[in-house]
């Protein structure tokens, strides 16, 4: 099935949203809860599964829904279709600070493998599936777990991750060592493995953990600079309510400064 071709525009710097323009009759699928606004004439429809037409029958639908559950997505997908006579826009917002990147599946050979939970929205016809990590070591120590998301189709998908997102092209055989947890998405052609940091001293004291993720080309990979889990850990460590310690931010007044700076509750 040919994908709907959608025009889009991404707004914002670090807390972005993407506005997708739908021609009459076109549709986009969005992650549940990601919709930010839509214009008149766009109808919202919630379907069980991922809304792609590949899955026939009840069993196929259940299977699709089950897959979505495993990847941490909602059971239902929302389809936004333009029922009006003109072009209409619908916007999807990223759930946490980071970047939204558009990926043309056709350019990648039809398949993108990405971190679970990173899918934001796509043209109708893209199917969301799961990809099990084949390598035990990568599943355990690769930072992305055993289950990744697999997006199939030939349309446009929008993927979101934390911090700054960087796309990198790897030549055949070119290897990149990446901090585990920073891999957002990769083309199917890229080999994803882990590697022991090499020295016991580094493993213990470098703060990089025991393993690197290694990505070997050819193909394109996307990396995030700040996995949301890392940000969350920092915030919790700092949050007094969660048992953290708020530091004086260098104020001479120290604890007293907290009384004066006005952000007490």
């Amino acid at each position, binding site marked *: 099935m040919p994908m709907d071709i959608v025009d889009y525009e991404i707004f914002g710097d670090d807390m972005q949203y993407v506005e997708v323009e739908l021609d009459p009759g076109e549709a986009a699928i969005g992650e549940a809860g990601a919709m930010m606004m839509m214009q008149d004439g766009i109808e919202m429809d919630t379907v069980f599964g991922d809304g792609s037409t590949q899955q026939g029958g009840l069993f196929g639908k259940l299977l699709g829904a089950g897959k979505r559950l495993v990847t941490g997505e909602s059971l239902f997908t929302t389809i936004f279709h333009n029922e009006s006579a003109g072009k209409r826009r619908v916007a999807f917002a990223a759930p946490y600070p980071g970047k939204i990147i558009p990926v043309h599946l056709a*350019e*990648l*050979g039809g*398949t993108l*493998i990405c971190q679970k939970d990173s899918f934001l929205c796509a043209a109708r016809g893209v199917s969301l599936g799961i*990809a*099990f*990590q*084949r*390598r*035990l070591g*990568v599943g355990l120590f690769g930072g992305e777990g055993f289950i*990744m998301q*697999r997006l199939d189709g030939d349309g446009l998908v929008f993927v979101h991750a934390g911090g700054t997102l960087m796309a990198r*092209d*790897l*030549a*055949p*055989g070119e290897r990149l060592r990446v901090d585990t947890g920073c891999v957002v998405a*990769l*083309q*199917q*052609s*890229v*080999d*994803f*493995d882990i590697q022991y940091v090499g020295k016991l001293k580094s493993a213990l004291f470098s703060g990089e953990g025991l393993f690197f993720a290694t990505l*070997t*080309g*050819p*193909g*394109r990979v996307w990396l995030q600079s700040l996995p949301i889990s890392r940000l969350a850990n920092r915030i919790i460590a700092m949050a007094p309510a969660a048992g953290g310690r708020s530091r004086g931010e260098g104020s001479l007044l120290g604890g007293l400064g907290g009384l004066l700076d006005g952000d007490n509750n």
Partner: protein
Amino acid sequence: MATTTSGGSAEAPIAARLFGCGTPPTGEEAQLTFWSSQVEVRSARGVQRVPLAILRAREVVSAEAGLELSWDARGGSCALQVFSPAAIARLRSHPLLREMAQMARLRASRMRSRAWRTVAVALLGLFVLLPVLALLAFLWQADRIAGAIAGRIPVAREQQLGRQVFARMRDSLKLQEQGESLLLVRSLGERLTRESRFRYEFHVAADPAINAFALPGGIIVVHTGLIEATRSPDELAGVLAHEVQHVELRHGLKGLVKQLGLRGLWAAFTGDAGGTLAGEAAVQLGSLRFSRAAELQADAGGFDALVARGFDPRGMVDFFGTMEKAAGATPPPWLSSHPTSAERQQALQARLEGLEPAPGR
């Protein structure tokens, strides 16, 4: 398709994706055909023929497993990748590629990784199964294990526990501070427990339900309903002797240890600690239920104690007869968790017959 002049193949080309060789960084579609000594790669950029001798093979794993053939060209290295299972199988079994050392290595590593996977699955299975096995073992030997653990708990500790539970229950019980029945229960109880290591306390609660219960450490509560249902002090002594045996045999403590153990195992198994154990313990003791075996044991022990203390054991036997008649459709609470009165009466009757001629009073 292509000609077969040089001993090449007339097979259908294999769909692959070509990287490097001037293609875009994300590669492009290509068709792969084998000839006797070279492979033909047909893409939008044209056709190139690569000698088999310079080909390298490698497995690519990015959640999905694929096969890559790569070679060095003038503009850098090029790679062909195949991901569909059918195409991978065709490549793997291709007579020309089978000769390649890398293919042999790939096959070997595949076998190795398969072996590893088996080991990993086995370990994982064991990991999952272990708590289940522990749970089953505990369920199977629960009474024995609980008994052994309870045996290590000092009496003072048990009494403290009993008092704590009693303090919680006290408000909901209408305890009688004085009265004939209290005096009667106390005097009978003291006679039954004279040389016990436990310090007993006997209470009478105003409640029409025919019930009596014992808490760990020696607190025994008798409902007025039960006292009214007995026709002689000997019958009441029979009930008390039974309850005293629950204390002496530490049934409450054993039951508690068993419950806590199961709960702890359940928590370890499910990762759900649900509720504080101590709070649960109080609830559990408040509505103590002993096993059938424990009840029969308490009956037998009580019977012997009655005989030893000079009570008429027939009182105990008779009381079950009274109970049986009173029971009707709904048994009184004291019996609800117990074996049937008739069954117990029979067991005691047998004991009574073993005793004849009766020791008298």
